[in-house]
């Protein structure tokens, strides 16, 4: 298979970017068949404040992947400044998200968004009697109270049932006193809910501080936004060909709630890291191993086309293609003058015998015309050729190309230890090979004249051979350093201990791939597109990317999470395999409630939901259980790389919640 035929052209500045792209590409491979899910009700998603808005892609991506009519959803961003309230609508161009400022007030913007959805065809939103309005707010926002007040006054403005939900993303970390800000806002919300219950809607409290004591850092906070998106999916979904489980979905509404969230996924990040790291490492070792025993002088001469008389194929070709046509012919030597016929006969006789004729005597016999003729006809053209800058540049490039084509970067690095002796080899003078037994005096004279011209050419070319050789040695060294630096960058990406099976299995996979996809070129390089010294960093990473794209077309990279686990842990018993997903989910769910509180707050299980692709074995197992629809609900997720489990809890004693911890003094406003 030609690895370059994947036709994925991308540019990368460093290994980090390449790794991120690798992971993204692998995730793309995990998209399942287009499912039958779509939003039942018109849904507007409002991001209150910059902090929530900065995570829009995690919400939007989940909704886009799972709802077929996601393009018709409306997204708004509201930002409060000292002077005004700015309202923006979301637009997309391909994968790029942009926010466009609108002149409407926030309530007006909501109304406009709702009307936009209601004017769509009936088949887009089957139930237009209800409007879902989903608000996300980071509780650490300074203007949190203003945002809440806005939320409270929002409505569709129409005669519909508004399903209004606020997802309060609490920050319980003490950094910048965020926990205090979050707590103050939560208390304010509780107070306002009591004052205006009819405007309160549903409140989800989703914190970054989990029941188990774990805190979700910036790199993991996306999970809370994905959880929010999942709840949005669950709360208003219709699956084509299936009856609506409206009753169960009702558990998601009303009151104050929190959730536990378990996510068991294929370890794509680790797989990406291992695959890329090993790919680069194996490619490198594979190339280096080709260099066995060093390169002999004879081999260097052969590769550079250096002949016995120290001619060089490249120079000879240049001479033939560029200069020779300008030169006199052998027969033209016959028109040189002679002192007299006797002298000419003497010359003929000597040369016919194959004997040498002294140069000085020859010049004398030809009345000094021969050396002038050689100067004009054979030497001057070489001088004229060399005088032109463009000719010298072309030659320089040709010499550089020759070195790069005939030696791999590893070989050049090896040769750098023998630089002096190679330079001596390159500078060995071109010497006369004789007239090859010719007896026609014109050909004999011609051979000598041609030698003079070529000798002059070699004299000019040899310094260029040396200069370019030094340059390519430096290039080879720089290339190697760059390669090592990129490898070191990747090695800094750590792999958790529990993912050691990832390393073992994928390393072997990558090695097998490299062995099978080598195509050795004339220099012995297996992957010439990667080991091309002329490439800058961007181009080099682009070459690696192309091979990577081909590598992840291998079936294993497309396995869903179950099959992948099965393949990776092939030493697991059948019983264990069946129970594995359930156990993993259980492990992940335990302690994952999105709220840390010292006091009990009346946490009551309201519902349990599984988000899993229906083709997964575990999904089939769940679907067959009696409790399906009663104790839990299944959502057919349009991805194959994981399974999610969400438990929703009603909070019956919200007054017992202290987001800042019991030790902190709570300022009374």
């Amino acid at each position: 298979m030609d690895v370059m035929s994947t036709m994925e052209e991308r540019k990368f500045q460093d290994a980090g970017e390449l790794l991120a792209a690798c992971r993204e590409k692998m995730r793309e491979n995990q998209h399942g068949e287009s499912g039958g899910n779509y939003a039942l009700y018109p849904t507007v998603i409002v991001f209150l404040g910059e902090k929530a808005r900065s995570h829009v892609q995690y919400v939007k991506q989940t909704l886009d992947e799972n709802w077929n009519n996601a393009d018709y959803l409306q997204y708004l961003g509201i930002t409060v400044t000292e002077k005004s309230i700015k309202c923006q609508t979301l637009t997309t161009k391909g994968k790029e998200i942009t926010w466009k400022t609108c002149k409407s007030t926030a309530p007006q913007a909501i109304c406009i968004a709702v009307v936009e959805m209601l004017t769509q065809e009936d088949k887009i939103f089957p139930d237009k009697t209800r409007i879902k309005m989903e608000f996300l707010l980071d509780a650490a926002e300074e203007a949190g109270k203003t945002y809440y007040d806005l939320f409270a006054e929002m409505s569709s403005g129409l005669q519909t049932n508004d399903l209004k939900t606020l997802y309060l993303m609490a920050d319980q970390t003490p950094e910048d006193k965020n926990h205090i800000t979050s707590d103050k806002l939560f208390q304010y919300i509780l107070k306002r809910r009591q004052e205006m219950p009819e405007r309160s809607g549903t409140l989800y409290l989703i914190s970054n501080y989990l029941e188990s004591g774990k805190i979700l850092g910036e790199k993991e906070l996306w999970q809370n936004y994905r959880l929010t998106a999942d709840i949005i999916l669950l709360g208003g979904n219709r699956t084509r060909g299936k009856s609506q489980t409206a009753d169960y979905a009702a558990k998601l509404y009303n009151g104050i709630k929190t959730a536990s969230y378990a996510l068991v996924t294929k370890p794509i990040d680790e797989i990406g890291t291992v695959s890329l790291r090993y790919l680069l490492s194996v490619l490198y070792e594979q190339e280096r191993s080709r260099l066995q025993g060093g390169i002999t002088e004879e081999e260097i001469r052969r590769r550079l086309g250096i002949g016995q008389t120290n001619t060089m194929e490249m120079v000879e070709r240049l001479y033939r293609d560029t200069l020779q046509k300008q030169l006199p012919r052998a027969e033209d030597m016959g028109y040189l003058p002679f002192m007299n016929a006797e002298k000419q006969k003497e010359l003929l006789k000597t040369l016919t015998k194959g004997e040498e004729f002294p140069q000085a005597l020859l010049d004398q016999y030809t009345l000094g015309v021969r050396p002038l003729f050689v100067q004009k006809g054979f030497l001057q053209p070489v001088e004229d050729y060399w005088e032109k800058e463009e000719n010298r540049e072309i030659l320089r490039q040709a010499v550089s190309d020759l070195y790069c084509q005939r030696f791999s970067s590893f070989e050049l690095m090896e040769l750098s230890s023998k630089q002096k002796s190679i330079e001596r080899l390159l500078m060995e003078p071109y010497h006369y090979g004789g007239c090859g037994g010719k007896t026609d005096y014109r050909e004999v004279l011609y051979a000598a004249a041609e030698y003079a011209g070529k000798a002059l050419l070699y004299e000019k070319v040899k310094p260029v051979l040396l200069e370019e050789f030094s340059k390519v040695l430096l290039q080879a060294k720089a290339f190697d350093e760059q390669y090592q630096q990129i490898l070191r960058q990747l090695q800094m990406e750590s792999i958790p201990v529990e993912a050691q099976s990832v390393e073992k299995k994928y390393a072997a996979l990558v090695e097998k791939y490299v062995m099978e996809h080598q195509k050795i070129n004339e220099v012995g390089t297996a992957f010439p597109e990667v080991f091309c010294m002329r490439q800058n960093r961007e181009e080099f990473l682009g070459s690696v990317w192309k091979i990577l794209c081909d590598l992840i077309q291998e079936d294993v990279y497309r396995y869903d999470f179950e099959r992948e686990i099965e393949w990776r842990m092939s030493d697991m018993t059948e019983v264990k395999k069946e129970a594995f997903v359930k156990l993993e989910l259980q492990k992940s769910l335990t302690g994952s409630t999105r709220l840390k509180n010292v006091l009990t707050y009346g946490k009551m299980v309201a519902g349990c939901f599984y988000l899993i692709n229906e083709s997964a074995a575990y999904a089939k197992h769940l679907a067959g259980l009696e409790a399906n629809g009663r104790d839990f609900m299944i959502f057919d997720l349009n991805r194959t790389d994981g399974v999610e489990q969400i438990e929703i809890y009603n909070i019956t004693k919200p007054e017992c919640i202290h987001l800042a911890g019991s030790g902190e003094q709570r300022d009374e406003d």
Partner: protein
Amino acid sequence: MRIETYRDDFQLCEYSLKRNGGEIALSWKYKGGSHFLIFLYDARRSFKLQQIIEEIEKQGHSDRDIVRLPGGSLHISGDGSMKVYVCREPEFAMKGQCYTLQGHEIKRGIPYGIRIFAAQYDREREMLHIYCPKEEEDNVQYIPVRIEPEIRYRPVLLSRDRICLLQIPYMQDYIEGALEYYVSGVRCGYPLSRECLGREIQIVIPRDAAVTVRVADSCKKYYRI
């Protein structure tokens, strides 16, 4: 004397040279200048104005004296390879903008170059300012040496070849390779050395070929056929 850089108002143009019998008539057009300096020199040698002026000054000529010369020869170098003449502008104009050199000033066998410079005499400072042309090869004409080669042919019995007998007269200080002979049907020329001059040289050529002599491009200033 003082050498000045190019100035538009001392530019010369349409400089031409004609040989009338034994005389050499030089004519040119000009914008300004009180005097003209004419340099007649062996074209094979480099022309260095500064050096020449220093030689003239060494001989004790002041600028005042130079401009008062009735016209004619100002200076002759020791070996006769450089002659300098002065011509006053009114006289030049009166003679129909023409200056004549006598034929005996020119020796046979030497290619000559003749350069003209416009000059302006400053009476107050008693200084003659000499103005250079824009390009070095402006304001110069050449009198190349005329060559008359002798070419004969001698058949060779029972052969497809014949012998060309070429004779070029001897020239002193001949520039090697200035003349070339060409054989018909052959692209390249054969440069003639000094040893070829003043003797008959033999060239074996095909019976139906001919030999011609030409001046090398770089030497057309010095010789002509």
